C-alpha cells in the first residue's frame, strides 16, 4: 500500500512548533490569538495523525523511516529523522487528541488569566516536544525531545509562579526527573559505545537485541535496560521517583490533564515500549520493571485512599495506573502496557478536566468542602462518573478491558503480581468512589452558585467520556485487534480468561460498594479504620513519609554538601582570586606613586634599573 500521508508525518510536530513561535513572537499584542492558534495547530496535527493512523491500519504496511545527516564525525554519522511505526502512530493520535481537547478546554478554564497566550505557547511547545519524542527515530533525537518535555513541564507546573508552592513544585518536578534523565543519558552513551557502528537508531537497536547473537554482553544489556528504565521511572513517576508528580498538581488543571494523560508521564512508558527489545533481551531487567511497576501500583493506590485534595487523589491514581503499565511491560505484554496507556489517556484526561470544572465552580480543591454537586453540574458529574467507572475497571468501559488485559497477563506470568494488581484495583475503585460520592453526592455545602461551566469546558468532557467508553473495544479477550496490530501478530495475547474478567469486575464493584456504604449510606462509619489505627491513616496521609525521608536524606545532605562547597568556593577559590586581584591593585598603587611627573624620580628609577641590569649581567658570569 502506498504511504502518502506517512511520508509527511514529520509535519505533525511542526504545527504546534509553529504555533509556539507565533504565540511567543506576537502573543503580547493579540490576546485572543492563543486559543485560535493553539487549537488550530492541534487540530491540524490531529487530522494528519489520524490520516497516518488510518493509513497504517491497511494491510502489510511497512514501518516508514526518513531523515537527514545531522552531524558527520568522519568515523560516525549522527542522523536525525522520524520513524512511523504502529506504536508511534497510535501515540501521535493520543497526544494530539488530548492536546486539542486541553486547548479547547483551557479557553474556558484560563479565560481570566493574564498570561493566557503564554500558556498556549507553552502548551504548543509541550505538544511539539512530545510529538517529536514519539516520532524520533533514534535515541539521541528522542533524548533531545525528552529533555524538552521536561523543560515544558517545568514551565507549566510553575506557570503560576507567583505562588511559592508552584515554584517549589516546578523545581521539584524538574530536579527529580533529571535524576532519571541522567540514567537515560548514561544508557544512551552505553548504547553508543557498544552498538555495532555506534548506531543509535531504533531499527538497528531492534535488530541487534532481537537476534540474540551475543553482540552485546548479557550484563551490559541488563545495565542498559535498567538505566533506560531509570529514565522512565523519573518521567513516569514510578517509585522511588514518584514524588514530583503529586506536587505537580500546583500547575493549572488543564496542564495536569496534559501531563498525566498524554505527554510527560506517557513518555516513560513509551520509552520502555520503544526500546522493548532491549528489555526482552534481559530477564533481570524485565523483572525489575514488573516489580517496580507492581509495587508502585499498590503503593500509590493506598496513598490515594487517604488524600483530601481532589487533584492529588487523581495524581496518585495516575502513579498507580502507570505502575500497572510498567508491570504489564515487565511481564512481557507490550500490548497490555500500551493498551492501558491508550485508554488511561482518555479517562484520566477526562477526570482531570472534570476536576478542573469542579474546581472552577467551587474554588476549592478539598473534597470535604464539596458535596452535592451532582445536581448542579450535571454534565460534569456524568462525565466524571464515566471516567471514575472506567478507572475503577467496571465493564464495559475502556479501563476494564485494558486492566483486564494486564491482569490476564499477570495471572499467566506471575500470580503474585496478579494478586498485587487485584488489590490495587480494589483500592482504586474504593478511592474513586470516595472521591465521586464526596464531591457529587450528599448535601451541598460551601458555594451556592456552583453550575456547569461554559461549552468550551464541557464539550471536551463529553468527547473524552465517549472515548473512555468506546476505546476499550479495540482489544478484548475475544478480539485482539490492537495486540495483533501493535506487535505485528507475533505476541501471544492470552485469550479467554473469564475468571480474570469476573475477578477484576467484582473487585471494582466491591470497592465502589464499600465507598458507597461509607460515604453515602453511612452504614460503615467513615472513621471505622482510622479511629482504630490512626497511625495507618497518618502514614497514608503523609504518603509513607517518603517526602520527609528524601528531605532528610537527600535534600539536607545535598544542602550540607552544597554549603561546604560554597564555603570552599567563598574562602579558598575566591580567596586565591582575591589575592591575585589585591596583588595587582597593590602593584598599581605603587606604580601610580612612582609616576609623579618628576623627571628626577624617573631618572633615579632608570638608574636603578640600569644598576640591576648590570648586576644581573655581571652576576651571570659568576653563577
Amino acid at each position, binding site marked *: 500500500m502506498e504511504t502518502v500521508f506517512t511520508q509527511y508525518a514529520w509535519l505533525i510536530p511542526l504545527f504546534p512548533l509553529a504555533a509556539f513561535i507565533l504565540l511567543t513572537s506576537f502573543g503580547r499584542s493579540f490576546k485572543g490569538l492563543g486559543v485560535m492558534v493553539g487549537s488550530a495547530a492541534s487540530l491540524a496535527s490531529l487530522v494528519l495523525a489520524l490520516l497516518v493512523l488510518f493509513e497504517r491500519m491497511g494491510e502489510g504496511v511497512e514501518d516508514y523511516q526518513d531523515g537527514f545527516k545531522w552531524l558527520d564525525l568522519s568515523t560516525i554519522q549522527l542522523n536525525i529523522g522520524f520513524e512511523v511505526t504502529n506504536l508511534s502512530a497510535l501515540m501521535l493520535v493520543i497526544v494530539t487528541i488530548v492536546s486539542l481537547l486541553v486547548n479547547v478546554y483551557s479557553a474556558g478554564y484560563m479565560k481570566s488569566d493574564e498570561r493566557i497566550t503564554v500558556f498556549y505557547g507553552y502548551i504548543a511547545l509541550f505538544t511539539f516536544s512530545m510529538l517529536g519524542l514519539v516520532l524520533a527515530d533514534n535515541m539521541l533525537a528522542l533524548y533531545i525531545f525528552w529533555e524538552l518535555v521536561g523543560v515544558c513541564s517545568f514551565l507549566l507546573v510553575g506557570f503560576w509562579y507567583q505562588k511559592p508552592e508552584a515554584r517549589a513544585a516546578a523545581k521539584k518536578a524538574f530536579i527529580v526527573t533529571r535524576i532519571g534523565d541522567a540514567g537515560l543519558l548514561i544508557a544512551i552513551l552505553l548504547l553508543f559505545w557498544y552498538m555495532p557502528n555506534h548506531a543509535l537508531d531504533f531499527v538497528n537497536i531492534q535488530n541487534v537485541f532481537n537476534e540474540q547473537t551475543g553482540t552485546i554482553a548479557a550484563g551490559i544489556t541488563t545495565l542498559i535496560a535498567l538505566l533506560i528504565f531509570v529514565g522512565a521511572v523519573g518521567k513516569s513517576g514510578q517509585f522511588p521517583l514518584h514524588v514530583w508528580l503529586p506536587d505537580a498538581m500546583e500547575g493549572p488543571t488543564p496542564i495536569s490533564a496534559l501531563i498525566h494523560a498524554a505527554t510527560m508521564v506517557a513518555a516513560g512508558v513509551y520509552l520502555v515500549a520503544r526500546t522493548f527489545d532491549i528489555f526482552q533481551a534481559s530477564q533481570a531487567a524485565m523483572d525489575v520493571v514488573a516489580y517496580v511497576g507492581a509495587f508502585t501500583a499498590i503503593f500509590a493506590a493506598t496513598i490515594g485512599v487517604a488524600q483530601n485534595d481532589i487533584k492529588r487523589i487523581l495524581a496518585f491514581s495516575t502513579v498507580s495506573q502507570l505502575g500497572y503499565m510498567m508491570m504489564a511491560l515487565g511481564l512481557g505484554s507490550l500490548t497490555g502496557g500500551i493498551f492501558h496507556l491508550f485508554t488511561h489517556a482518555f479517562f484520566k484526561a477526562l477526570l482531570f478536566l472534570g476536576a478542573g470544572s469542579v474546581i472552577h465552580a467551587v474554588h476549592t480543591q478539598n473534597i470535604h468542602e464539596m458535596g452535592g454537586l451532582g445536581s448542579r453540574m450535571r454534565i460534569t458529574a456524568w462525565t466524571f462518573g464515566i471516567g471514575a467507572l472506567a478507572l475503577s475497571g467496571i465493564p464495559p468501559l475502556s479501563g476494564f478491558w485494558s486492566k483486564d488485559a494486564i491482569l490476564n497477563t499477570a495471572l499467566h506470568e506471575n500470580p503474585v503480581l496478579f494478586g498485587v494488581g487485584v488489590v490495587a484495583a480494589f483500592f482504586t475503585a474504593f478511592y474513586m468512589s470516595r472521591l465521586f460520592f464526596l464531591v457529587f453526592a450528599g448535601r451541598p455545602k460551601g458555594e451556592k452558585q456552583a453550575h456547569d461551566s461554559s461549552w468550551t469546558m464541557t464539550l471536551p468532557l463529553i468527547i473524552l467520556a465517549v472515548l473512555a467508553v468506546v476505546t476499550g473495544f479495540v482489544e478484548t479477550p475475544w478480539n485482539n485487534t490492537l495486540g495483533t496490530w501493535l506487535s505485528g501478530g507475533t505476541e501471544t495475547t492470552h485469550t479467554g480468561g473469564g475468571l480474570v474478567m469476573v475477578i477484576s469486575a467484582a473487585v471494582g464493584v466491591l470497592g465502589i460498594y464499600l465507598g458507597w456504604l461509607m460515604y453515602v449510606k453511612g452504614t460503615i462509619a467513615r472513621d471505622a479504620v482510622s479511629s482504630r489505627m490512626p497511625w495507618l491513616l497518618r502514614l497514608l496521609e503523609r504518603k509513607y513519609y517518603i517526602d520527609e525521608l528524601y528531605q532528610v536524606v537527600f535534600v539536607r545532605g545535598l544542602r550540607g554538601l552544597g554549603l561546604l562547597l560554597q564555603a570552599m568556593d567563598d574562602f579558598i577559590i575566591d580567596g586565591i582570586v582575591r589575592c591575585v586581584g589585591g596583588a595587582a591593585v597593590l602593584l598599581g598603587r605603587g606604580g601610580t606613586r612612582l*609616576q*609623579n*611627573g*618628576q*623627571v*628626577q624620580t624617573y*631618572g*633615579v628609577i632608570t*638608574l636603578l634599573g640600569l644598576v640591576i641590569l648590570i648586576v644581573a649581567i655581571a652576576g651571570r658570569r659568576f653563577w
Partner: protein
Amino acid sequence: MLSSYLTLAAILFCIGLYGALVKRNAVVVLLSIELMLNAVNLNLVAFSKYGAVPSLTGQMFTLFTIAVAAAEAAVGIAVLIALFRARGTVNVDEFDEMRR
C-alpha cells in the same frame, strides 16, 4: 695612565649624575648634565690617546660633542627661561606636567 683618566671621568660622571638627580635648582641640574657630558668627553680623549688603537678620531668626536653640547645648553637655558617666565620658579619639584 689610562686608568687614572678613566677614574677621574667616572668621578666626574657620578658627581654629574648625583647633581642631575638630586638638585632642586634647574640651572644646577643643567650644569650637572654638562658635567656628565664632559666626563664622557674625557673618556673619549683618553681612549684616543692611550687606548688599544690610538687615533685622532676620538678627539675629533670630542670637538663635535662640545659643539653639540653648547647648542644643547643654549636650548636648555632657553627652555628654563621660558619656564621661569611662565611659572616664576626654577624649582624642578614643581614641574610635574608629565603626570597629567
